[in-house]
Every structure is written in C-alpha cells, then in structure tokens.
C-alpha cells in the first residue's frame, strides 16, 4: 500500500507538463539513436550530461530513462526491416524479423516488437516498483560459478541458430569465440592476439603489434560489420540494373488475429526471462534474448516456420530485451550498482547532482526515485503511441530504391562506428568484418552464431576463471553450489533429453 501511494506521488511528479515534455524528448531521441547503427544510449546520455546540468535532476533523469527505453524500441526497427541491428540486444530480432519482412509481414513484425516491448516494459516496470529489493537479494546470490553455469545454458541456444548445416553454424560460432579472445586478458593483464602480420615500421613484412587491439574488438563493430556492411555488400553483389526486387507488402499492415494469438505468450515468457536476468549484475541484455528465442523455438506449434519468419521469434526476444532493460534499473536504484554502460553513466549523473543511488536514495529523494519510475510507465505508453503508427511509415523505407537505401545504411554504419572512438583503425576492422560477413552470406554461413560466440565467450571465460581463482583451483565448485549445479543440469537435459527420446522411440519401434 505504501508503495502504491508513493507511486501515485511519483505520477504527480512525472505528469507535470514540463516533465512530460522531457519524457517525450527522451523517447523520441532514444528511438532515433536506437535506429542508427553503432550509436547507443550510453554514448548519447554521456554527451547530453553536461547540457542537462541546468535542468532539475528529476527532469534530467526522466529524459535519460526515455532515451534508454526508446533505444530498446528503436533498435528493432532496422533489425527487422533491413537486417541491420543497431544494438547487440536486437540481433536475434533480425533472425526471424527480417525473414518476416521479406515475406511482406514487416509491419506485423514491427507491431509485435512494439507491443511486446510495451507489455514487457510495463510488466517489468511494475516488478521494478514492487519487488525490486527481493529481486536484488536473489540476483546477488549469483557468483562466478553460477554465472558460468548460466552462460553454459545460454550457449546451448546456439543450437537453435545454427541453420541447415551444423558444420557451418559451428564454424560461425568459433569465429566469434576466436574474435572474443583478442585483446588484454582481464584476469592476467596479458595481451592476446594483438600481434598480427603486417607492414613493420621499417617497411618490411613482419609481425606488428597493434595497440588498438588491446581493448579487444567491440561487439557493436562486429554486429554492424557482419550485419549492416555484410548485408549491403551482399545486396550490391546481387543487384542488377533495372531489376528491382521490392519486398512485397502483403495483407493488412496490422497484426492479424492469428498473429496476436501467437504473440501474447512469447511476450509474457520473454518478460519472465528478461527481467530477472537483466537484474543480475552480470546478466546483460543479450543473454535473455538468446534464451527467449531458444524457448520459443522449442515451444512453438509452428516449428516449420522457424528459419522462415516466425512471429514468436520476434515477439519473445523483443519482450526479453525490454524487460532486461528495466531489470538493469533494479540493482541501480536498489543498490547503486551500475551493471550496464548506460547504467554506469546514469550513476555518474546521479553523483554529479550530489545524489547517491542505493537504499538511502529511496529515503532521501523519494520524489526523484518514484518520479523516475512513474516516468518509465509514461515513457512506455509514449513509445507505443510513437512506434505503432510509425510501423506503417517505417516499412515504406523498403520502397526506397535499393542503391540509395543501402548507400544510406553504409554512411550511417560508418559514422556510428567512427563516433565510438574516433578511430580509423575501427573503421578498418568494420570493413574487414563486413567483407567476412559478405562471404558468410554468399556461402550460406549463419552470422548470428558469430555474435553469440563473441558475446558469450569472454563472459563464460572470465566467470569460469574467477570461479576457479576463488575456489583456488577446485573445479567441483560448479557442482557443489546448488544454483550452478541446477543450471548445468538443465543445460544437460535440454541438450540430451530430446535426442535420447528420439532414440528410445526408434528402438521401441
């Protein structure tokens, strides 16, 4: 009851015209940066920070929250329509979403993403308002051994992304795992794979160490390279003058009754997977999208449609990434723990206003915390109003002649990646990876497993080594900790039970 009255006070703060205006600016800006490849919410909030010092803290945070939620909505648009995700959390959306767009159901895919994001964002915000403290205590139970087990479980989901050929899919996965090894090893401080053949200072051919590789290859560069640049090169290689292939727009631009029926359960499941993992300090926003996609693929009544544009494969992961985005705010508000780049910058923003997030903030500045939470509800509604009618407008992007459209994508991809570090070296990597992405498409290698490997590989490795360091080399730690052991058991069951059942069936016959 107390929470409800505080939330009501929060709405009084958030519903003032001026704060509504800031929320509207935030969600619009967020949607825009979500659409642009490479430019993420963290960078945007960091650059806006000095400008917002003139604002009231409440107004500034309402705007930041709008940017944060908006970017999660916007990221799905280019994933679905152009197969070029702007954020790593929306790569899974590109898998089925883009296939839907090619079937002419692009608007329905956008709609299920927007409504799913709204449902997940709202439910997760309700969870944030009412159960944040207890969720945080549960999330803290996760130590390195538990995270490693969770990553193992997430790795299994790759099996759903492999495509027709397991060899090709695994090759793509290992390419990602290999890329993930490049750079300074966090646990020892030693550089790995940063010395490559090249032209040395005296002009001869030899080994050169590249200091630019010390921080590793950014996930976002690989995502933009493999998807945006790779896709552009592929489209260009297939393009013939005069033969325009325009994706047909079939049927209603709205979701059909059937599409609604197939979407609502994935929305709810995606929320249930996304929120708790987002609340975990090392859960991240990508892992829940992988798990949700895998779950939907296993539970669907239309398995034949997966790999050809199944709506469940868009609805689930989109709900999961928005629920995870709300989940990230749980440790930030409840404990002052920043667990994503955007959260870290929001924490810095809190501190520059002289505020310290954490349990004390709920007592010292309830207007701010509850105003922020209330603005999340409002932001979600605004985003739905902004994105749903826009779905019909966005799909018209596909009517732009391909040479202009893809030239535009290349310009934005290049600008986005350059804006990360102002580094020409990064642009070189982007283009090399883009050419690799083109080759993978040309020879039917799926690109999604590469990104999964690049994201999960380093996480799994670091957590494994932390666990081993803390246990002083005792590997049984993964089996003696109940949570870790259960997660590993689930992973083993998911992997082994279906083939075992098939085997039993065959033997019984």
């Amino acid at each position: 009851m107390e929470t409800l009255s505080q939330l009501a006070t929060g709405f009084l703060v958030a519903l003032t015209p001026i704060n509504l205006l800031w929320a509207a600016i935030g969600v619009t800006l967020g949607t825009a940066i979500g659409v642009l490849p490479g430019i993420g919410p963290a960078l945007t909030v960091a650059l806006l920070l000095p400008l917002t010092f003139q604002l009231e803290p409440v107004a500034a945070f309402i705007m930041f929250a709008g940017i944060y939620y908006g970017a999660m909505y916007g990221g799905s648009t280019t994933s679905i329509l152009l197969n070029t995700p702007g954020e790593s959390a929306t790569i899974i959306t590109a898998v089925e979403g883009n296939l839907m767009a090619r079937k002419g159901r692009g608007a329905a895919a956008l709609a299920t993403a927007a409504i799913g994001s709204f449902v997940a964002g709202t439910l997760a915000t309700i969870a944030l308002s009412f159960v944040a403290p207890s969720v945080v205590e549960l999330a803290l139970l996760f130590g390195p051994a538990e995270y490693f087990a969770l990553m193992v479980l997430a790795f299994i989901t790759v099996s759903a992304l492999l495509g027709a050929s397991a060899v090709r899919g695994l090759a793509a996965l290992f390419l990602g795992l290999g890329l993930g090894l490049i750079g300074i090893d966090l646990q020892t401080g030693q550089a790995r794979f940063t010395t490559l053949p090249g032209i040395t200072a005296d002009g001869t051919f030899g080994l050169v160490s590249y200091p630019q590789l010390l921080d590793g290859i950014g996930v976002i560069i690989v995502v933009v390279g493999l998807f945006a640049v790779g896709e552009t090169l592929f489209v260009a290689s297939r393009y013939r003058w005069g033969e325009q292939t325009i994706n047909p727009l079939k049927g209603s631009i709205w979701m059909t009754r059937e599409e609604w029926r197939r979407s609502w359960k994935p929305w709810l499941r995606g929320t249930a997977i996304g929120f708790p993992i987002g609340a975990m300090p090392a859960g991240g926003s990508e892992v829940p999208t992988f798990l949700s996609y895998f779950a939907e693929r296993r539970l669907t009544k239309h398995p034949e449609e997966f790999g050809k544009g199944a709506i469940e494969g868009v609805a689930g992961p989109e709900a999961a990434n928005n629920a995870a985005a709300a989940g990230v705010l749980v440790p930030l508000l409840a404990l002052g723990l920043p667990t994503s780049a955007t959260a870290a910058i929001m924490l810095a923003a809190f501190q520059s206003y002289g505020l310290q997030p954490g349990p004390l903030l709920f007592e010292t500045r309830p207007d701010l915390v509850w105003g922020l939470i209330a603005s999340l509800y409002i932001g979600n509604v605004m985003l739905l109003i902004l994105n749903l009618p826009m779905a019909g407008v966005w799909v018209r992007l596909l009517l732009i002649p391909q040479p202009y459209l893809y030239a535009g994508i290349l310009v934005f991809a290049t600008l986005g990646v350059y804006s990360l570090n102002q580094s020409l070296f990064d642009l070189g990597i982007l283009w090399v990876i883009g050419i690799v992405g083109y080759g993978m498409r040309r020879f039917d290698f799926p690109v999604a497993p590469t990104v999964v490997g690049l994201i999960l590989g380093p996480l799994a490795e670091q957590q494994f080594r932390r666990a081993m360091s803390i246990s002083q080399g005792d590997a049984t730690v993964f089996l003696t900790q109940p949570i870790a052991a259960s997660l590993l058991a689930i992973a083993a069951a998911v992997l082994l039970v279906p083939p075992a059942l098939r085997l039993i069936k065959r033997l019984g016959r």
Partner: protein
Amino acid sequence: MTMNITRRHLLAGSAGLAVVAGLPAAAQTVTSINMLVPAAPGGGWDQTARTMQQVLAASGIAPTMQITNQGGAGGTIGLANFLNNQRGRADAMMTTGLVMMGAILTNKTPVNLSMTTPIARLTGEYQVLVTPARSRFNTLADFVAALRANPGAVPVAGGSAGGTDHITLGLLAKVAGADPTKINYVAHAGGGEAQAALLGNHVAGGISGWGEFSAQVAAGRLRALAIFAPQRLPGIDAPTAKEQGIDLEVPNWRGVVAAPGITDAQRQALLNTIDAMVKTPQWQEVLTKNNWGNLYLAGADFARYIEEENRRMTEVLKSIGLVN
C-alpha cells in the same frame, strides 16, 4: 566534421595570439584549450575535463575548451596520438592519471608520461579496502594476518589486472610482509561487477576508490577496513591503514599534461591558467560535489612526482609478476 576541424584551427590560432599578446608574464594565461580525453565519454578523465571546461568558462579564465575523446588501452592510445600530433602546440592538453601510468607499464607501450610536459596533478581519491558486512575480518590486522598465512585463500575483487586496485593489493601484501607473488586477485570489468561480488559474499575483500564503495559502507552492506590515505579525511568514515600500523598511501590521482616541445613561456601560461582555475570558488565547489580530494601539485613538483610514482609502480608490478 569539417566544421569541427575549422573550429579547432581557429581556436588553435586564437590561443597562439593570447600567448603572444604581451601581458605581464606572471599573469599570462591561455584563453582557449584543446583537451584530449584518452577515454570514452563518461569516465573519470572525461568528467575531469568536462568539469574543467565548465569552471574555466564560468570563471571567464578560458572561455573555450574543445574536448576530444579518444579512448583505448588504458589511455595509451590517446597518449601516443597526443605525443605524435600535438607536439609544440601551446593550447593542447590531455587528462591523465595513475591508471594510464599502470597501463603504460603493463602494455609495454613505447611512449610514456615523461615525454609530455607535466602541468598539474589536480584531484584524487584514496584507495580503500573493504569486506562484505558478514566477513570474518573485522580489522585490517585480521585481514593482513590471513594474507600473511595464505594469500591464495583471500580472494580480493577489483578492476582490471595490473590496474590501480591490483597494484594496491600488491603494495599492501608487500608492506604487510605477505608474499605479493601469491596474492589472489580477481579482476572485474567495471565497478558494479566487483561490488556485486562483494555484496553477494563471493570474495573475501575488495579494493577500489572510496567513491565506489561509500554508499554501500553507509548502508552497512560493506565494511571499510582501511583507507590508504595520509590521515583521516572529513566525511569519510574509514580508519587509515597508517593508524593500524600499515604504512601505505595510494592516491588514485588525476591530472593534466601539455604537449611536448612547447616553450617555457607557453608552459608557464598553462600553469597560470590551471593555477587560476583551482583557486576559483567554482572549482572548490565541484570538488566537494563530486567527492574529489584536492591533490593540487603543479609544475616541477608534479614532474618529480610522476618519476617517483613511476618507480614505485614498476617495482610493485614486477613483484606481482605483470611486468618483467
């Protein structure tokens, strides 16, 4: 992009004018600065630069400061570019700190801080050792005893390997008479992860700057065993290591350096500018607001400090096996 370059050139030109404008030498300052932040927006160096920008503009000392972010490899990529591209430019400055010094050593970078023109150490935060509230260690003495007995059994969380937190643990082991080669340091990316490991009671201790842990200490979720500062600090509820018999000070400092190859007069103008800035009430205000310690140390004293600190870091990184 084009506009940026044009503006930068204009600013560079106007700074040159300001320097030769014939003001009396003692009061000569620069009116515009080109600041390179060798890290992505949002971090400590970026905040330092953006805060300087505000204070210098608000006080009218230097109305224009152009900030460029170029992150990577603990700031060493920015450092290399700064040394190569800004040589002799009177208006060029770069933010730096202990983190860059450690990265230079562990990455075996061919460039180092002595190649710049040191201007001033500005702010800093003292390193602190904490344990989870439920820990068996109640004092620094308990912790050090366990560290002496078996360093491997005391896993300590902090930032990246070879960074300030790791160096602090190595120094602590050394001063306390434990074996620094055997310490069990568990590296984490970003402060949030290390804090989560502590709050979940997954590690024995944690090391970072006071600001990272202050909220958790205030909420009673973490216990501050020792702050590695010369004396107790106002507003910080933690005993010093010194008063518990461990003579160790580790400030995680931040400062600014200027380009190599500038004249003495140009260097003096930058020193005057920074000196005027730290004396403004606005600067004192942001120090308090951001909880930054005032570690102002300028000119030749700062250059000497860099040399001494470099020697201390090299020694400890050798003893923890990260530099050979």
